[in-house]
């Protein structure tokens, strides 16, 4: 679980979120969040992103997140898709 390819998922449309995952030299998840609803939901978004990645076994990565007001379900879907592309591990198939 240490070979990550830089990958992304999502769009910049309103109500969507764009997630980019790249390898990190430092241990841990480094989430860089830019959100239109940062004041009210910034912490919640970071929580959903890190939970979703941890569940998929990604614990060390640079994660760039540009959020346009996505709901939690959308955030999980986009993070999962980005992680599948980054790890090559297809969670839907397995």
């Amino acid at each position, binding site marked *: 679980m240490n070979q990550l390819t830089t990958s992304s998922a999502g769009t910049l449309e*309103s*109500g969507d979120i764009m997630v980019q995952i790249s390898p990190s030299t430092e241990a841990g998840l480094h989430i860089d969040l830019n959100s*239109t*609803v*940062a*004041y*009210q*939901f*910034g*912490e*919640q978004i970071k929580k959903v992103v890190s939970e979703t990645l941890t569940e998929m076994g990604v614990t060390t990565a640079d994660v760039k997140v540009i959020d*346009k*007001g*996505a*709901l*939690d379900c959308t955030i999980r879907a986009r993070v999962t898709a980005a992680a599948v592309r980054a790890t090559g591990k297809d969670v839907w198939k397995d």
Partner: protein
Amino acid sequence: MNTYKERAGLIEQAAKACNTTVYKEKEVPNKDLTPRTTSLTKSSKVMSLEDAIRHTGLKDGMTISFHHHFRGGDKVVNLVVDKLAQMGYKNLHLAASSLIDVHEPLIEHIKNGVISKISTSGLRGELGRQVSLGLMKEPVIFRSHGNRGAAIASGELHIDVAFIGASSSDPMGNACGYSRYPTAKSICGSLGYALPDAQHADHVVILTDDLVPYPNNPKSISELNVEAVVEVESVGDASKISSGAIRDTKNPRDILLAQTAAKVVENSGYFEDGFSIQTGSGGASLAVVKFIRQSMIDRNIKASFALGGITAHMVKMHEEGLIERLIDVQSFDKVAAESLMNDRKHKEASSIEYAAYNEPSAATRMLDIVILSALEVDVNFNVNVLVGSDGIIRGAIGGHPDTAADSALSIIVCPLLRGRIPCVVNEVTTLITPGSGVDVVVTEYGIAVNPRRPEIAERLTKAGLNVVDIHDLAARAQKIIGDAAPLPFGDKVVGVVLNRDGSVLDVIKNIVEPTN
């Protein structure tokens, strides 16, 4: 005998009685003998912007005013304020009918002290954000269009110098928002928001990009009110009027909302021959007229007038004979502006005639139905159209509270959520239109009717529409988005919202951006 000479004594007596002098013929009569064809294009009022500013006697600390009929295409505010900055003016009070994204350069003029106070209907874009973050020492004063007109007329908002952009003016200052000459460069149609300024400001400067020969008739603004006429390259770009908040929507959710609102109109009890209607800015509310058109044809119903905020859709329905007359305080697109120029039944109205609370004949009082948008509606039917759910000023009051309070039926059209931002909430971020004037709220998850209007709820239910409790809508929104953290408001008041009668309705606090 009764000759002129013999009447001299009586003439002198009459002069004394009238407290005036006796006429004396001049030795050299000062009759102007030049052919008038050469003087129709000249006047001592025509001068450079800098001379015009000096001519008005503008001083530091005074109030200057502008209209926003060109909306996103406006070029006058930035041009004039740049010039005032160059000339070294400080501490001016800028009283605009509204300010939009295009007025972002004002931020620098606020920082360097040229502008120290703002009165407006709204703020958008970076200017709104900076003001929310505490850019200004004095809070911005927000007024509805009706209240601005009333406040100018009463002297509560005293304007020293009005700078009015006009699409044509003759050298004497007869001006309007279109030009009938082949030299026409711009068009904005109605000058409704500038008419109170023209009438009541101490000094009026017309800026025009089409200086036409005298007489520029018919006109909106009379030469009697104008002191200086300044020819400029451009006063505005008409193609940018219909942008931002008043664009034509293609969003499928907006269209669904508009279709539902049209059904509310048709079953409200006010959809009768001779009814009157207005639509506010916002894609969904503007689109409603498209959908009531067919019902008007089917049921042989004609509207006596449409008020607004006139759009191309309304002009089309007027030309089809479905709307008898158009009352236009602001032309929302080029088609509407051209119709105002060409159609005698399409009339310009000042913001006072449109919506002043203390004007018994204000057009809003003759209005049956108004369809409006909202950033937020709360469970008490209060509406916010000015401050975003992130606490940042990003809208405008416009005529929202005026039309809601005065119409027989006000309908708010808004989605339940915009992204993760709820539009139906427990309490609005800022109170703009009190719920006492709001009758129906249309969302894609159901229609809420103010309990004050049980007869409307009954009619809509009978028509098979999905009438729901507004508390259920708020709860549903809350459930979808999850728990929001409180907004990082500071302790500084950055905005004061006036009610349409001039009383203070609410204040807006600054937002403290978290430092990362």
